[in-house]
Structure formats: structure tokens, C-alpha cells
């Protein structure tokens, strides 16, 4: 019992010490954009989309307020990381839902971006 107590005590002590953090960029290309709840994107930014099955997908930009789907891009996704550029110059500034849909128009991933 005493040993257990010491182990637990050590665990607590170590859990209270400062961790050394690796400083990362807030949103990097290696991060799946759908794992980030909300982010601001600029024209030409590269986004990474992680996909679990190969096939045709639709990526949509939907205005958060008006629900207008301003554009849908059809792309062929491969398993794993898929890097796409997002172009914002033609889009009105605002907050958008970024959706990935399968061929049956089911939403499989969703996040929010701001332009």
C-alpha cells in the first residue's frame, strides 16, 4: 500500500510541474481544417482535408447567415491527407460553413471559416 502511495504521490508531483511546450503555429497546413472549430482564411490558403475512403466528394461554402451555398467544388479525394487551396477574392466577407459531402450529399465533415 505504501508503495502505491509513493507512486501516486510521485505522479501528482510530476503532474504539477511545468510542461515544456513546443510552440506551434495556430493553424498549419498539416492540421486537418475540420479538426479546428473556426479559423480565418486568406486568399490562396492551403487547407488539408483528411479523408478515410477514396471517391468523389463535394466541398461547399455556405453563408452562415443566409444559408446560400455560394459554391460547390467536386473533387476526387484519396485516403489520407488531401491538400486544397481556397480562393476568397470572389466571395463576400463573412462567416461560412465549410462542408464536405459524399456523392449522396450527406455531410461528412463540417467546420466554420471566416473571410
Amino acid at each position: 500500500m505504501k508503495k502505491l502511495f509513493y507512486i501516486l504521490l510521485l505522479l501528482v508531483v510530476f503532474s504539477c510541474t511545468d510542461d515544456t511546450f513546443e510552440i506551434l503555429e495556430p493553424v498549419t497546413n498539416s492540421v486537418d481544417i475540420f479538426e479546428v472549430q473556426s479559423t480565418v482564411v486568406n486568399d490562396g490558403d492551403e487547407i488539408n482535408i483528411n479523408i478515410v475512403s477514396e471517391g468523389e466528394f463535394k466541398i461547399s461554402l455556405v453563408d452562415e447567415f443566409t444559408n446560400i451555398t455560394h459554391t460547390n467544388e467536386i473533387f476526387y479525394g484519396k485516403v489520407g491527407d488531401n491538400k486544397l487551396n481556397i480562393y476568397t477574392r470572389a466571395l463576400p466577407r463573412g462567416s461560412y460553413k465549410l462542408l464536405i459531402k459524399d456523392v449522396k450529399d450527406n455531410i461528412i465533415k463540417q467546420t466554420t471559416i471566416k473571410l
Partner: protein
Amino acid sequence: MKKLLVLLFLLPMLSFSQTINISLDYAGLINEPVQGEVTPITALEIGDEFYLDVTIYNSDNSQRKVTFADIWFTFKNDAFDYLGIDNPNPNGNWYTNQWPSVYEFQNSTTATVDDLYGQYYTDHRWNYIGEQSFHAPMVISSQTTGELIGVVARLKFRYKQVPNGFDFNQSAMLRKASVRDNITGYLFTDVKAFPNQTFDNVPTSTKVTASFKVLFPETLDPTLFDGGLYTKDPNDVQSWLQPDYATYENFSTDGSMNITQGFDRTSDLAVIANWDGYVVDAQNGDYTITFGEQYDEIVTISDVALAFAELNNRGINQNEVGNEFGNGIQFMNADVNGDGQFNSDDTYLLLSQVLDVSTYLEGDGMVYASKFYPKAQYDTITTTNYSQIPNGTTLMNYLDNKNNSKLQFSFESAITWRGDVNLSHSTTPNVQSEQTTTAKVFIPSYAKATNKVERQISTTITTELVNGKVIANITLDPKQQKVIGAQYKVKFDSSKLIFDEINYQTNNVSTNFSNLKNDYINIGSFVQIKDQYLDGKTKYTLTFTPKVQLDNTLGLVILTNTDAVNAKSEQLKMNIE
């Protein structure tokens, strides 16, 4: 011993409980008259510009720090102009945006109002409720590697003239927030509005003031228009100039403008309102929307269809009027050549305008298209008296200001347009006697319709890279509607694409059109043959050549505005899916 063990187990768990409080606090004038002093809220006067500070408090920032914040507010833009954001914290890099006050924030059904995390991540909604909304949504968002703590943002507002008895309760309010530590990827789940969620109780002003408001419909963005107070030039009765101290500025989001500076109760005064079109875009660079681009949205295929319908539906003896137009102002707007009568000359001019064959406008300026009337006069224009009302285009709004016993002046003008036959971009007329006397049928534009559900169809755009070209396909689903006209505004990134061609798959009897203008293309179809309609096979295929190497097309070609009309000349709403 067992208790000690339990305590030891609990300790680490308790130590991770971390609360983020966000507060909204009045913080004095932006330019204090006495440096170092803060003007109290009780001394605020109309025209004052002041700060609301956003403060983030972290109960334990030893391990997890706030480096990302996405904070949503609402504010009453009838009383305040949002001027932007100052950044007191070197770690902040704020994105900000605001939307018109046509949405209402509906709280989540599961989270309390002050639970900003709960509101963000559960079932809150923005309900579109139109002009009766008091609150305009706005957002600030920052993502950094440095910590956001203490006063992280200073929101700047200007106090506008308000009607007597204005309710200042919840003048600004925190609504929802997502806060995280980007370094560890930790999302804070205990985010509260505390101690101040709202900004309230602004005192009413006692100064002599004057405000001017154009009753812009929701289809126009007031901030794209500007104007100022003018008085007659004493040396030239034909000219107008700005009085001393008068300002010239953009209209605020609710269409109002403070004209107190330079205002008096003896001179001949007017407000000149004009098109500005300047858009501030910090990311991609500022740009200007031309008046021509705006006018292309005002006069569209549904105006043409309604004008043709009014002309064609004149009864067996061809002597009836007002079977399609319910308002006198529609006859005035349809008389695009300004000869005092609406007839077939006008309908063909309208069609030529939409097809971009020719234009009836004498120049590029707004002065050739806009009309302003005092709201009280606008509401007296009927289908029987409209010919007695001046129908010229103008930028002038003459003010009835000669009343020495009055302290607070509020002027309201209606705006309407040459060619806006369905009044889609005009102030809604409120003519009490009109509906019961002359008008037999009134077909309002979609935005003003009551049977909104039945008047909806859908459309979709898809883009893809095919053999090095960017292909955009637009399809139409008319649902149960007999669609005779459809029009789309397709925007594209002209820095990366060159428009090549369009291919139409439409009804064989339709008139198809496309006009390329800078970075957008107006496309559409119009059917004038009886019992012929645009069906579900309608498709427009646009081809673009990339100027740069492209691997995908997301955002390069988009749909912005759409218009559609059915065989009854009713404007339809296209849901873009």
C-alpha cells in the same frame, strides 16, 4: 489512508478545472477631453465615440492559455455605429465583421444565456426576422501564439440620435464564444460572460440634433451609399454647398446619418445621397463596386416580366390598368424613358437593359437612376394620382427644417429606382387606400411577399477542373413553379481566371443572355411564348481558362445574386444549394 488516496486522485482532476470569463465593459470616450480621465457613461451625448472593452480572465493560465478567441456579440445599430476594433494587446490580431440587423439570436435550448461555450456549441440559431430586429450581429476573432488575457480588444462605437423613449437595454451583448489554447489544442469548455454580459442604460441626449434616414430595403446595403448636408449657395441659387462643419460620410448600417453638424432651422437645407461603393477589405485589398454593378441587381428579369404582364393584361377591351401593378410608384418606375406614360416602348427598353443590348440610363452615375421622396409623400402615391408626382431622377432630399420650436429633427426618405418595377430594391410603399380601391392584383417582389414558401425554387452551382479548364455548371430545379425567367450573377476571381464561353441547355424558345462585366457575368433566360417554361433540365455551363497553375477550384466561381419569375409574373426566391 483511503481518504488520502481519494484526495490524491481528485487533486489532479480538480487542478484542470479552468474557467474563462469574458466581460464587456464601458471604458470612456475614444478621445477624452481631459487626458487621463474617463467620461462617465451618464455623460454620454449623441455623436460621442466610445470604447467597450472586452476582457478575458483565465482562472489558471499556468498551463493553458487563451491564444484563440472567436467572440460573437449583438448590438443595437439603431443607437450605435460600430466603428471597428482597437488592439491593446500585442498578441491580438483581430478579425472583425458585422451583419445587418435583420437577424435575431435565438438562445440555445440547453445552455444558459451567460454560458458562451454552451451557446456556441449547442443549438443556438440566427433567425432571419427582417427589419424588426433590434440587434445587429458582429464577431471578433483572433488566433495567435501569444496569450490573450486582460483587456484584449477595444470595440469602438458612436452614439447616434435615437427616437424618444429608445430602449437602451442590451445595447451591446455577448452571445457566444469559442476559446482555445492553440498551443496545446485545448478547447476551453467553461466560458462564461462575467461580470458584464451586456452594455445598457445609456442616457438620453438633450442637445438639438438632426438625423436623416433613408429607408433602404433589405436588398440594399446602406453603407455603400454616402451623403451629407447641403445648403443653397448664397452666390448662386442653382448651386448647393456644404455648410460649415457639415460632414460627408457613408450611411450607417440602418440607413441613418447624423446631420447635426451644420444643421440650422432657418436655411434651405437638403441631404444629397449618392453611391459610394467603396469596400474595405483588409485581406485582399479595398475595392469599389460600381454603380452599374449595383443597378444590374436592381433591374432584373422579373421586372421585365412584370412590366410585360401589366401591358399584356389590360382586359378584353385593352382599357384596364393596374391588373398587375398595385402601386402608383410602379407605373412611375416602369416609365423608363420618362415620357409620362408607361407603354410598350418602356418594356422593350427594360428588356434591352437586362439583356445588355442597350441602356436607357444617360450616364453611369446614380443620379440617372435614383429617386427620393419624403416618406410621407411616398405613401400618398397611388395608381390614380401618380402622374401628378414629379418622376425625375435625383440625389436630392429636401428637408422640412424651418421649425424653431423643435429640438430633435428626424427626417425619413424613401428610395426608389427607375426600372425597379417590382420594387425589389425600393422602400415598401405604405399606401392605405390603395389595396381597396384601384388595385386588383398586387404582386410584390419575393422579399415583400407573404406566400414565401410557395414561391421558392432551387438552383445549384458546381465547379471542377476538367482538362486544365475550370468548368462551372449551374442547374435549375423549378419544383412546382412555371418558371419563365431566370437570371444569375456569377462572380469569378478575375486575377486567376479568364472567362471563355457559356453553353446553354434551356427551353428552345427561351431568349438566353450573358454579359461579361469585369469580374462577374450576368446570365439568364426569358421565355415569352405562352405555356412554355424553363424546366428541370435547364443548365448553364461556363468555361474558364486559368491564368495561373491551379490544382482545384474552391471559391474561384461563385453565385451571388439570383432572380426568377413565374408565369404569373411573381418574383421567386432561388435557394442556392
